[in-house]
């Protein structure tokens, strides 16, 4: 556990040292703030004291930003050779993968914490469904974690950062749009499977204020699969055939 934290902390330092963290946070707050308060179907337009608009915007901005954060995690270390150095220290592949995963999740957590003033403001305007806000944030975190899992895997199979970004976005877009879109075109069992695979299904149900095990299992299994696959890619070097 300790080793995981050491690795996560170093990654987080890198995010903040390279301005990557600040740029992401500023952009994220800018986008979500703009659309929540000022532009399009914002809160005043809807005329309701709810953060639903914000959650929908964040749902999209995080989908784009997360691959930009995860793209370098492994691809860059592979390119520069530091991965070899790191893996010859007394750490195992799991600790490296989980540490890197946690660092990015923490950064997203910080970004979401900074949107709390939105919540406080809205709560002052009218009656907010506090439960729905809490589960909405939880939904954003879980969704982010799922895309970080996908992103870190994409980074592990990519030869450079740009490829890492594009692969993550490519895999992500299936969960984000394609499955949901296809689900509406198919009926029966296949349609239901596609419906279950769609991120939107689970995100909506959780932002409505319901924490269902079905949704939790969905998010956790994407995270799990992403991390297992990444570990698999890293440990491939040990294959002896």
């Amino acid at each position, binding site marked *: 556990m300790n*080793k995981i934290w*050491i*690795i996560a902390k*170093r990654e987080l*330092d*890198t995010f903040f*040292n*390279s301005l990557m963290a600040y740029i992401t946070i500023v952009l994220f707050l800018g986008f979500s703030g703009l659309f929540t308060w000022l532009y399009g179907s914002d809160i005043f337009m809807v005329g309701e004291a709810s953060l639903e608009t914000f959650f929908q915007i964040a749902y999209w901005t995080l989908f784009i930003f997360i691959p930009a954060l995860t793209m370098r995690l492994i691809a860059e270390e592979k390119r*520069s*050779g*530091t991965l*070899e*150095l*790191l*893996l*010859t*220290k*007394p*750490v*195992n592949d799991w600790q490296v993968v989980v540490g890197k995963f946690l660092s990015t999740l923490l950064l997203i957590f910080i970004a979401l914490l900074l949107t709390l003033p939105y919540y406080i403001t809205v709560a002052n305007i009218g009656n907010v469904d506090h439960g729905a806000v809490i589960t909405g944030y939880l939904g954003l975190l879980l969704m982010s974690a799922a895309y970080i899992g996908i992103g870190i895997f994409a980074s592990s199979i990519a030869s450079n950062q740009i490829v890492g970004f594009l692969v993550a976005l490519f895999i992500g877009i299936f969960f984000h749009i394609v499955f949901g879109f296809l689900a509406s075109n198919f009926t029966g069992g296949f349609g239901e499977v596609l419906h279950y695979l769609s991120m939107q299904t689970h995100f909506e149900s959780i932002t409505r204020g319901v924490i269902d095990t079905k949704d939790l299992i969905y998010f956790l299994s994407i995270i799990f699969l992403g991390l297992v696959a990444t570990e698999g890619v890293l440990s491939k*070097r*040990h*294959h*002896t*055939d």
Partner: protein
Amino acid sequence: MNIHVENYTKMFGPQTAVDNISFKVNTGEVLGFLGPNGAGKTTTMQTLTSFLSPTGGNIKVGQYSVLENPEEVTKHIGYLPENNPLYKEMGVIDYLFFVASIYGIPKEKRSERVREMVKTTGLEKEKHKKIGELSKGYQQRVGLAQALIHDPEVLILDEPTTGLDPNQIVEIRELIKKIGKEKTVILSSHILAEVEATCDRILIINDGKIVADGTAGELQKRAQNKEFLKVTIEGGDTNEIYQKLQEIDSVEMVDFAGKQDENAFEVQSKPDMTSKKKIFDMCVSQNWYLTELTPVETKLEDIFQELTMN
């Protein structure tokens, strides 16, 4: 801590990178690992540090095997990989603290260890910079500092002096020699002079196989069963001298050495024979005079080339 390499084989798909090699390195020994590019040096070092797993055989560092206890192995090894990869965006001190914590050095001892490493590797003046801002030589010192921070018993250095200027090379070599007194060191290099200057023993590998193993002196002796002389004779016609030299019965080969009008020759004798006296006698009988008669020692370069050129 001893290192035992037993029947180690490494394949990458159908390609054999290292083919069934065995050797032992004892505590306090500095082993020079020589070989042309692609001979399997780096692969062997990566397996020693348990980054890769052997396809066949086993490698043991002390009592720990890279197959069964890879994490124990890494705790006892300090490793400087080829091209010295570092987190360039990190500060020197931050980086050393990170490595110290990864090695599980207790919190209260970390700053002391980091300070010590900065001193030993001469990073005092540069310690507040980011690694990427340092010159290559100083980056190399950071690489050495991170490899030594947990006071490992085994040190593995993959081409530690590439890209350094001559002064830096001398300094790094001195450092390795100093460290090598109490640790087991394996060092790979293309630079033969470096291996000769720093290593107690030399291992030459080619095409994944060990082709020579011994001290620099032993390797020289082995390659030098033929006498090789540099001879300069004055007072006669060049071609005539050449002719007469070739007529000596113990001489196998004569070659011109040096510029055209200098009567300098390289004389190689037949195996286990000497031609010194006969050359001298020849000069006396012809009324020529010798200005040079020097035995030429086989250089490590020649041995290396002979063993690794197919």
